[in-house]
């Protein structure tokens, strides 16, 4: 009798134990590390309480990094998510070659981010990069600049790379969900005289409500924790203009050996991700 009740645990335990040891416990270790003053090499460490967090609050680089992450969240929701939504709703209609399009859109997503960043850094190259060359060809040469080297444009330029890799993912998710929506609802709306915009707003968006919330959460988490694009291209430069929380934490940890301070930054990041996720889910689920 009791064996029946124990058996399921044998199936859960391997994965769960692994998860606890290598994912859950380290989170608490990171938090605890942040209350000390350790450089990773010394044999002993001093307890300094919340000093790292006070330092963090006054750290201009941290503020700048976090602001970049938040800008990235906003841009990711505004651009690839919206574009994905629009493209998906177009593709859900009577489009020839729907699969070809969605297949092509998804390809940037499977390319390693370090590769995407590298390729785009040539496109952005001030001298021979595709972007500037095309701008000059069509007579907009005065807009040409050193995209990734320009303090004002570096973050946005990088964000466009991120959007390039991400919009196909959004298209795929929304399209898959849209294909399970009843087409007769749309047909009825056309008969009633609704134009495409009205159909989009009143039918498509409410139907995709849960998926939109999900993609928003996923995008937010991604925009807060991303590292690859920044580090492979600009390493956070110029002058921290593309620094984000994870790249700052990386250089603190590995390049400056300020282990405990890096731990406090990680902890704050985790906290922000958790709270933003919960907030979005709460507001997304409210009307249900």
């Amino acid at each position: 009798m009791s064996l029946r009740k124990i058996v399921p645990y044998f199936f859960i335990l391997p994965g769960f134990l692994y998860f606890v040891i290598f994912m859950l416990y380290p989170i608490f270790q990171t938090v605890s590390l942040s209350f000390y003053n350790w450089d990773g090499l010394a044999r002993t460490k001093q307890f300094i309480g919340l000093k790292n967090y006070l330092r963090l609050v006054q750290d201009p680089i941290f503020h700048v990094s976090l602001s970049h992450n938040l800008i990235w969240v906003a841009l990711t929701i505004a651009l690839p998510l919206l574009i994905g939504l629009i493209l998906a709703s177009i593709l859900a209609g009577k489009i020839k070659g729907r699969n070809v399009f969605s297949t092509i859109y998804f390809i940037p997503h499977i390319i390693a981010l370090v590769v995407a960043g590298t390729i785009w850094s040539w496109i952005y190259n001030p001298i021979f990069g595709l972007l500037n060359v095309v701008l000059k060809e069509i007579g907009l040469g005065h807009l040409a600049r050193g995209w990734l080297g320009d303090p004002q444009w570096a973050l946005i330029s990088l964000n466009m790379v991120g959007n390039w890799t991400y919009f196909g993912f959004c298209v795929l998710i929304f399209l898959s969900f849209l294909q399970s929506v009843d087409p007769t609802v749309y047909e009825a709306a056309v008969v009633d005289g609704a134009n495409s915009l009205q159909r989009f707003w009143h039918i498509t968006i409410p139907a995709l409500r849960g998926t939109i919330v999900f993609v928003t959460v996923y995008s937010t988490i991604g925009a807060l924790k991303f590292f690859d694009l920044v580090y492979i291209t600009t390493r956070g430069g110029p002058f921290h203009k593309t620094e984000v929380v994870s790249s700052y934490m990386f250089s603190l940890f590995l390049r400056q050996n300020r282990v405990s301070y890096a731990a406090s930054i990680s902890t704050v990041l985790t906290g922000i991700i958790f709270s933003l996720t919960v907030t979005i889910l709460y507001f997304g689920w409210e009307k249900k």
Partner: protein
Amino acid sequence: MKREAISSLAKRKSYQWRIRGERIGVYALLVIFAVAALIPIIIALSTSLKTGGQLYENILALPTAPEWKNYIKVWINANFSRYFLNSIIVSAPTTLMVLFFAALAGYAFAKLKFFGKRSIFFIFLLGLMIPVPSIIIPIYFLLKDLKILNTYLGLIIPQVALGLPFGVFLMTTFFREIPEELLDSARIDGCNTLQILTKIILPISSPALKALVVIEFMWAWNSYFLPMVIIQRDEFKPLTVGLDTFIGRYTINYPMIAAACVIIFVPIVVLYFFLQKEFVRGITFGAIKG
């Protein structure tokens, strides 16, 4: 009467033209995005086959005489053959281990009853929110103490942990769809709990298993942050870190860097073309049923 007939005909025609215009506009939009999606890839491929001089001449032109030597130089001289091997040696076991743990746990969550099921599942779900920076510091020191920094095992172990939450989620979601009657008839035939998994569930889950394999392999192959922290020695670097090193060393040799990039993304793109359905299934399953 005639005037009304003519004007209504004219209205219908202009309506048809408007619809046609709308259709052309829509397809143009779709094509623009398709082109935007592909251009950087084409640039990478084309740049990789140029010589340095050809590159500065005209970025847009395709190479007239493909310089395959670039690939040989990258593969041999720049050690990319080794990096490629490393990526495989790390990504394959990671994928298999995630599959193993996730299938077992997913089965239990989907089909078995036990105390604390909801809470434990919820905890796994929390794992989806945990970013690498949150755990990298203690993991680094743990691996250091175990003396497995700069080894394959040292990279595989945390990567499996990072892939687990999604794997468990995917497997659970898929297994839930399997009809109870199938399991009941197996139980009547005398199968125990484990046999139900191996003889009934796994064989018919091959789409979901393939999807998980494909997704996890891609994530492991493309991962960068984790190996940057854990692997410092050149002989153990996977392709992504190898690229970073390579760029540092060959900063302006763009054709060679392009060749390196192509080497990194070609395996995954090839995998994608053969297993498209599985990729799509893996990505969308989590979103739709979640």
